[in-house]
């Protein structure tokens, strides 16, 4: 058990160290949602003051609406970034070293996942602080109640990243992940527009968005930020986390997974 914890600590620290050393990555991770918030959302300032949907109690500006979606965006990009680093690790040979450790592969993968989730959450809080400085405030308790939602969301998107990384052979293929995973997941969700707004333009679009697990993560974060519970969003997020984790474990299983095919 002690060994396992030492290994976990080492993996988490490695993630943290990698993050600290890549200062541009932190700045990029912060700038990306801030650009959305301050440039994109500013143009739609009055666009959403038309209908009230839970957890909001009154009319809100668009900037306020997209804050939870942008928190989700940070988790999503970071989850994918960590998958990118795994592909890199594999190319550089450091993954072989890691996987030869006398510990269960599931544990090692979970440690990796935990490391990337912690980094993601720190970035989300940095973003929320920046948003607060721009006068986009939330209920004070919301900053605390959002933490469990961020942990679940971070684990889910991190697990998705892990699962994907087991399928990606080379670093160059990461662009495909961007095109076929990150963008559809982000744009076909409730991050930028509420589902009722989607339904106005197309029922099909609404149904796709409603089925997207990222939507549920965003809604879980949205409700948690306003100190409210969304059972449905929690259920689907938890289910998706379990499914992606299982997929990742299967993908990295040397006997059955994709690893064997790559040789």
């Amino acid at each position, binding site marked *: 058990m002690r060994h396992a914890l030492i290994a976990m600590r080492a993996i988490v620290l490695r993630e943290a160290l990698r993050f600290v050393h890549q200062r541009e990555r932190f700045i990029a991770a912060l700038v990306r949602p801030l650009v959305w918030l301050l440039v994109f959302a*500013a143009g739609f300032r009055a666009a959403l003051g*038309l209908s009230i949907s839970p957890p909001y109690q*009154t009319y809100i500006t668009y900037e306020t609406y997209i804050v939870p979606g942008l928190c989700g965006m940070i988790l999503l990009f970071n989850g994918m970034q960590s998958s990118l680093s795994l592909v890199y690790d594999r190319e550089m040979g450091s993954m072989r070293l890691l996987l030869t450790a006398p510990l269960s592969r599931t544990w090692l993968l979970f440690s990796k996942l935990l490391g990337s989730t912690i980094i993601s959450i720190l970035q989300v809080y940095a973003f929320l602080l920046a948003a607060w400085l721009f006068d986009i405030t939330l209920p004070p308790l919301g900053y605390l109640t959002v933490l469990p939602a961020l942990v679940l969301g971070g684990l889910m998107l991190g697990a998705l990243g892990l699962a994907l990384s087991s399928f990606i052979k080379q670093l160059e293929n990461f662009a495909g992940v961007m095109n076929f995973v990150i963008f559809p997941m982000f744009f076909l969700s409730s991050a930028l527009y509420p589902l009722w707004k989607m339904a106005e333009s197309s029922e099909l679009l609404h149904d796709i968005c409603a089925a997207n697990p990222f939507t549920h993560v965003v809604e879980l974060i949205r409700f948690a930020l306003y100190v409210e519970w969304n059972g449905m969003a929690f259920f689907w997020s938890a289910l998706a986390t379990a499914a992606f984790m299982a997929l990742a474990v299967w993908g990295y299983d040397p006997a059955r997974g994709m690893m064997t095919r790559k040789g």
Partner: protein
Amino acid sequence: MKLPILTTLTAALLSTTALADEIWVTNEKDDTISVIDIETMEVVRTIETGERPRGITFSKDYSVVYICASDSDAVQVMDPETGEILYDLPSGEDPEQFVLHPDNRHLYIANEDDAITTVVDTETRTVVAQIDVGIEPEGMAVSPDGKIAITTSETTNMAHWIDTETQTLFANTLVDSRPRHAEFVKDGSELWVSAEIGGTISVFDVATQTEKAKIDFEIDNIHPDRVQPVGFEFTNGDTHAFVALGPSNHVAVVNAETYEVEEYILVGRRVWHLEFNRDRSQLFTTNGVSGDVTVVDVESRKALKSIKVGRFPWGAAFRPTE
């Protein structure tokens, strides 16, 4: 055994209900009043009125409530406890807004279709005077000392100054297009008049009836045509004014010393009139098109909640229940 418990519970519930202050909102298209419990922020009663209720005000002792039922051509007098219409006051045609004189007896009523201001004695229930004013009178105000009454006329674009002793006009001042609402502030030394189409508030020095300042409004990303000041109310000490800006869906916070706008708060659609709670820590806005009332926290200047009421809420009045 269960019955006494039930009775006690009901009594406790009733006493709690009785303690909470209320905001009464007239619903122009529903011909009703929605009563909002300030404690729970929910509509607790809906009362039927005459046709197209707009202006609403309580008597100074809150024993009766006066309602301008515009399409019934009457000012209705209601018992707020029972919700029963006691009687109608003669009001002239199409009463839209009114103001109760500090003597708690005379109502000054703007008759939109007739271009007159009607003065009604609420005790004898008779018309005391009818004063010719500009076309489509709407905004009404009385100075705190009761000596001056103001009527603003939408089409003539004027504030008409009425001497309440002689019930005659003694001055007319031009304001911007379509004046809607007037209020005396700072112990009656200033008169503020909002102009809906002009998009401004004119501030007058009451002693000389001259304009001393004009307040403009500008909201990012909202076309200036949609920024239409209508109702406004003042915080404690008249330090700040909250101004409803109609179809811009915002309420402006204006510094009453510098006449500068400090903030805009997003509320429901077509915000029309405003009312405070007892200590003026919360502001209630009637949002006509969205059919709700937004509650604004005065100190933090943030909208807290929007409460669904009837169709096209128009006027609002505070009622203490203790």
